[in-house]
C-alpha cells in the first residue's frame, strides 16, 4: 500500500494531554480565570494566613472587645475581644473544608449511584427509586434528625469539633447527591449507546474496567460542574444551619456562624457582617465562575471551536 500517513488536522504541537486543551480553553474564560485566582487567594489566606497572623482565634482579650479595625486587629474584635481576622481565617478553614468535603461526599455518592444505575439496567429501578425517595424526603427534618441523632456519638469518637464537622459535612453530602446522580445517570445512559462502549464490549472488557476506562472519564464534565456548584451550596447550607441553630456550636467559628452572630450587630458594627458576608460571597462567586469556565473547558464542542 502506497498510503503515507496523513497530515494530522490538529495544530502542530506534539502530543499534548487534553488537560492542556482544557486549561487553554479555561484561560480564555476571563471570569473563570479571575474566579480561580480569587479562590486560590482565599484558600491560601485561610490556610497560610494563621502562620503569619498568629493570634489564636479563641484568645479572649476582654479589654479590647468590640474594637474597630486597627493595626492590632485589622478586622476589629468581637464582643469578647477575640480577633476577627484570626476568626475569619479559622472560620474560613472550616467553611472551605465543609464545602470541599461535603461536595466530595455528594459528588462521590451521586456519581456512584448515577453510574451504577445508568450502567446496570437491573439496578436502575431500585437506585432511581432511592434517588426519588431522597428527593422527596424533606431535607430539613432529615438534617435536623441526623444532627440530633449522631452529634454526640460522633463528638465522643472524634472530639466535639471534628464530630460536628463530620456530622454536618455528611449531613449536607447525604442530602444533596441526588441531582448529580440524575445527571450522571442520564449521561451514562447516553454514553452506553455510544459506539466506543460497544467497541469495548466487543473486545470483552468487563464492566468494572468499562466503567473506569470508558464511562467515568466521559462523565467528568457534568460531575465537575456539579462539584463546583456543590461547594457553593454546601457553604451556604452550613451557614443556614447555623441560623437554624443546627450548625457548629457558637464557640466554633465558621463564616456562616460569624455572619449569623454578627447580624445582631448589623447597625453598630456593620464591618462584622461585611467580612464573613464578603468571604462567603466571594468564595461562592469565584467557585461558580470556575464552574462556568470548567463547563466550557470540558465540553469538547466548545473547546473545539
Amino acid at each position, binding site marked *: 500500500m502506497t498510503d503515507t500517513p496523513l497530515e494530522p488536522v490538529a495544530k502542530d504541537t506534539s502530543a499534548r494531554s487534553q488537560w492542556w486543551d482544557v486549561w487553554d480553553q479555561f484561560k480564555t474564560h476571563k471570569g473563570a480565570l479571575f474566579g480561580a485566582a480569587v479562590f486560590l487567594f482565599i484558600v491560601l489566606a485561610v490556610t497560610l494566613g494563621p502562620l503569619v497572623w498568629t493570634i489564636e482565634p479563641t484568645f*479572649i482579650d476582654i479589654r479590647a*472587645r468590640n474594637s474597630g479595625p486597627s493595626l492590632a486587629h485589622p478586622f476589629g474584635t468581637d*464582643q469578647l475581644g477575640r480577633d476577627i481576622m484570626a476568626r475569619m481565617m479559622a472560620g474560613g478553614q472550616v467553611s472551605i473544608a465543609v464545602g470541599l468535603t461535603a461536595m466530595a461526599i455528594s459528588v462521590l455518592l451521586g456519581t456512584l449511584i448515577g453510574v451504577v444505575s445508568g450502567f446496570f439496567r437491573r439496578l436502575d429501578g431500585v437506585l432511581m427509586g432511592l434517588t426519588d425517595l431522597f428527593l422527596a424526603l424533606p431535607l430539613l427534618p432529615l438534617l435536623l434528625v441526623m444532627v*440530633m441523632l449522631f452529634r454526640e456519638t460522633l463528638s465522643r469518637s472524634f472530639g*466535639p469539633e471534628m464530630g460536628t464537622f463530620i456530622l454536618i459535612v455528611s449531613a449536607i453530602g447525604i442530602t444533596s447527591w441526588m441531582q448529580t446522580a440524575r445527571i450522571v445517570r442520564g449521561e451514562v445512559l447516553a454514553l452506553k449507546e455510544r459506539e466506543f462502549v460497544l467497541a469495548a464490549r466487543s473486545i470483552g472488557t468487563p464492566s468494572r474496567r468499562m466503567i473506569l476506562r470508558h464511562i467515568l472519564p466521559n462523565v467528568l464534565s457534568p460531575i465537575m460542574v456539579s462539584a463546583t456548584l456543590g461547594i457553593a451550596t454546601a457553604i451556604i447550607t452550613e451557614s443556614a444551619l447555623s441560623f437554624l*441553630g443546627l450548625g457548629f456550636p457558637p464557640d466554633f467559628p465558621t463564616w456562616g456562624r460569624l455572619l449569623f452572630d454578627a*447580624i445582631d450587630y448589623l447597625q453598630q458594627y456593620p464591618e462584622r457582617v461585611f467580612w464573613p458576608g464578603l468571604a462567603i460571597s466571594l468564595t461562592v462567586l469565584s467557585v461558580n465562575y470556575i464552574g462556568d469556565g470548567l463547563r466550557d473547558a470540558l465540553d469538547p464542542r466548545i473547546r473545539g471551536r
Partner: protein
Amino acid sequence: AERGSDGEVKIIYWQAPSIMNPYLSGGTKDIEAASLVVEPLARFNEKGALVPYLVDEIPTVENGGVAADLTSITWKLKEGLKWSDGTPVTSADAKFTAEYCMAPDGGCAQSAKFDGVESVETPDERTIVVNFTGPKPVPYAAFVGAQSPLIQAAQFKDCLGAKAQECTDANFGPIGTGPFVVTDFKPNDVITMKANDNYRDPAKPAFATLTFKGGGDAASAGRAVLETGEYDYAWNLQLAPDVIAKMAEGGKGTPISGFGTLVERIEMNMTDPSPDLPEGERATAKHPHPILSDERVRRALSMAIDRTLLVEIGYGQAGRPTCNLVPAPELFASDNTDCIAQDVEGAKALLDEAGWTVGADGIREKDGKKFKLLYQTSTNAVRQDFQALIKQWWADIGVETELKNIDGSVFFGGDPASPDTFQKFYADVEMYANNFDGTDPEQYLGQYTCEKAPKPSSQWQGENINRFCDPAYDELVAELGKTGEISKRAEIAKKLNDMLTKDSMTIVPLVDRGRVSAHSNSLGGVVLNTWDSEIWNAADWYRIK
C-alpha cells in the same frame, strides 16, 4: 378614660404562644398570653406581694381566712363578677378548676399548684374553701398567680381528664374575667383580642383591641418596638446589652427591666461522671467526684470568675452579679456578696493549699492526676461566651477545661436514655439557669435533699442535680416545712441558701438574670412584673397622647 377609647395595642413575643390554656402548658409565652384573658383570685405584684384580684382581700390567719391549723383557706369572690360571656362567676367555677387540674389523665401542667389540696368546697356562690391534707404554711398556690387562673366550668365541663387534649376551641379561646377576650387564635402566630365588655372595671381596658404577635427572634422583636415603632410591647429581649442600647437610640421605645429569682449558675458535680465507671454507677453517690469533692477546689473555681464582667457582656441591664441561689424576694435573699470580687491570686493559693500544684504545661496536677474539667451547658450564644470566658479564667489558675454544649431540647429534655441531659450530669460542671414560682422558696430549696438526687433507680429524675447530700440540710428543710411564721421562714431559707452556696460552693451562682422588655414611648401604664405574668396589668395600659 373610657373603655376601648385608645384603639389598638400591639404586643410581640418572639416565642409564639401555642395554646391559651395555662393548665396544658407550662410555657411562659402561653401563660402570659393567657393572663390577658383568664385571671387568678390573687396575683403577685411587681414587688412580689400578693394583691387581690377576683377577691376583695387576701385571706390570712390574722383575718381568719386561713385556718389556724393551716389546713384550709377560704376565699371570697368579689360581688357581681362576670365571665366575658356575661354569666356570673361562682365558687363552682373554682371547684371545677381544681377538679380540672387534679383529674388524673388530664396532664395538667400546674398540678403542683394543687399539691396537698384535699378538696374544694363551695358553701355559697361566692365562697371558696380549699382544704389541705395537712398543715400548709404557705397556702397561696392554688388560684394564685398566672399559672392557676379560674376557668369557666360551663366551657370546660366536657374537657375533664383525658378529654382535656381535645377541647381545641376552649383551649384556644378560654372564656375569662380578664380585660380581653380572644377573637381569633392562630397558634404559634398571632392572637387577636378585643376588650372584655364584662370586665369588672367599666373604664378599662383603655384599648379596644389587642394584637399579640409571635415568632421570629429577639432582635427583630426589639427592632419592631425600639426602632420601627411597629409594636408597642416586646417581651424578653435576650440580646447583648450593646445591641439593646443601640436599638434604644432609635427613639421609638424604652427598654425596661426587672429582676426575679432566675439565677444562672454553675453546678458542681459531687459524683464521679467518669465514663470508665460502669453504667449505673457513673455519676452516682457511690463514687464521689475525684476533684470537686474538695470544698477548696470548688471555692477556688468560683473565685476565679469575674461575675461583673459576665453580666456586662451577657446581660447588661438585664443581669446583676449574685452569690445567692435565692436572690429575691428581699425577705428571703441572703446578704452574701463575697464572691462578687474576682480573686485570681486567692484562688491559686487555695488550690495550692488543696495540693494541686502547677505542672510543666501550666496545668495543675495532684497525685499524677491532671486538673481537667468537662464543662457543659445548653447551646446558646451567651452561654458559649460565658464558657469561653470562664475557660480562660480557669486556665489562668491552671485548670484545663473542655467545653461542650448540647442542644437545649436534649439537655433539658429529661430523656432517661440520653446521656446528655442536665439531670444525668455526665460532666464535671454544668451551667444553666433556674428559678422558682411565686415568692416562697421552700419547694425550691427543698430540691437539694439527699433523696432528690437523680439516680438510675429514679430513672434519673430528681432536682438535686449536683447530688449534694448533707443530713443537716435535710433536717433544716424539714423544719422549714413546719414553720408558718414568715420571718422565721426567711431565716431558715437564707441558711439553706448559704449552705448550698457560700459555705459549700456546691452551687456557684453567677448572674441574677432579670428580664428586659421594651415598650413604645406612647404606651403608658406598663409595670414590669417578674413574679407573675409580665403583662399582668394590661388592663391599666393606655395610650399616651
